[in-house]
């Protein structure tokens, strides 16, 4: 536990106190609270927003571990070990091309027929068997994993969990939940973090993950059109398909995402002749069926 994280609850508690005191200003005057160091309180209030922005990496990883365990309670891993190792190799190679190459990256194929993928803070990525089997090349898999990797790089879910915790639990309990892994508040935080995958992120986060995901896949040497190809496959499916319900609820429509990727046309074309590895994908994934 870093010093910064130990300080958070104290800072938030002080700030909460300060906020209560400020709201109760007339009462304060009435009861003449002694020795109130206003300057220190003002500093603490300033610090709370700063401190709330700083969940350090070990904390991020610990929160992610708890959320990942919940997601695996919703759907277990697909049983094929060869396919699981294959997806981990693709994912780790992609992650190695990013600004956070040494997170404890791990990738899991969930035994679920729906089409979806999830990024968990700290470097855990899930893809459903339903989505994997909709693909036809390693470049497509790389495109989807790269999109999820960007969510982790940019801490999209972590920030949403933190924001939600502050809003629903309040500053003090949120700080406790982020710090203390064995508390009721922590359970609430992790439940909230898990349910977030049913609510989705901001549209801007998703479109950013698409744009930067294209770059990460290109850096790893794949045909950059992997992600747009998957989006087009999804776009060609019936929007009412039950396997797409959760993904369509939590993401912008594929057509809108493809429109937004038009801005990446130059990058896409520049790296479009890199390998797609359809043969290796077929061997490693389709053989597992």
């Amino acid at each position, binding site marked *: 536990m870093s010093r910064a994280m130990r300080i958070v609850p104290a800072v938030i508690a002080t700030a909460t106190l300060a906020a209560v005191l400020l709201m109760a200003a007339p009462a304060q005057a009435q009861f003449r609270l002694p020795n109130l160091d206003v300057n220190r309180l003002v500093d603490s209030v300033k610090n709370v927003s700063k401190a709330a922005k700083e969940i350090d990496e070990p904390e991020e990883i610990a929160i992610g571990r708890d959320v990942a365990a919940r997601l*695996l*309670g919703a759907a277990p891993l697909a049983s094929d070990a060869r396919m699981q190792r294959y997806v981990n190799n693709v994912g780790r*190679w992609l992650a190695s091309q990013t600004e956070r190459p040494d997170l404890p990256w791990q990738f899991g194929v969930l035994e679920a*027929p729906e089409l979806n993928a999830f990024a968990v803070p700290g470097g855990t990525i899930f893809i459903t068997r339903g989505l994997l089997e909709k693909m036809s090349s390693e470049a497509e898999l790389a495109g989807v994993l790269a999109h999820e990797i960007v969510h982790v790089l940019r801490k999209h879910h972590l920030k949403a969990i933190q924001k939600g915790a502050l809003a629903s639990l309040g500053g003090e309990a949120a700080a406790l939940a982020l710090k203390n892994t064995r508390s009721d508040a922590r359970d609430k935080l992790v439940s909230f973090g898990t349910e977030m995958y049913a609510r989705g992120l901001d549209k801007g986060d998703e479109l950013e993950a698409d744009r930067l995901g294209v770059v990460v896949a290109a850096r790893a*040497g794949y045909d950059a*059109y992997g992600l*747009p190809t998957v989006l087009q496959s999804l776009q060609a499916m019936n929007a009412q398909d039950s396997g797409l319900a959760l993904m369509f609820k939590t993401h912008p429509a594929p057509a809108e995402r493809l*429109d937004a990727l038009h801005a990446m046309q130059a990058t896409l074309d520049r790296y479009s002749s890199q*390998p797609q590895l359809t043969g290796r994908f077929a061997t490693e994934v389709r053989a597992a069926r």
Partner: protein
Amino acid sequence: MRSFLLLFFLFPVISAAEPATVIRATELKREPATDAAPVAQLPEGTAVDALERKSGWTRVKAPAGEGWVKMLALRYGGPGAAKQGDSGVTQLFNVARTGSSGTQVTTGVRGLDDKQLANAQPNPGELAKMKGFAADRTAAAGFASKGKLSAVKVDYPAQ
């Protein structure tokens, strides 16, 4: 019978003609390449049949002829035509899950929807198993080089 079955399985791989619409004016090319000879200019809204995909290009049958267009210039579905049907995956699984009696039966496979996410309990055993499948950087680099993938420097787009 045998050849019929074979055809049945090959069909999706060859990919059936899929109705699509050109969403912005684009050139129909003889080959899937920017410098390929043009076949025709397709105006926005042209209805085509998409035949196959090759990286950023899709081969289409247009009123003006056959050729390749930029993948991002195409959207599937005719103009305003919603696609009918369902892949059926989840229905199939739902039947397996509920059985004819409507009660939960154990199949080892469950769907993944918002209810399941809301009610999920931690599964530390699966988490431990997942860790066992993880690849380290060195192994992943070896895997990449086996696939003839080379890392290249590409900058993120300016925000």
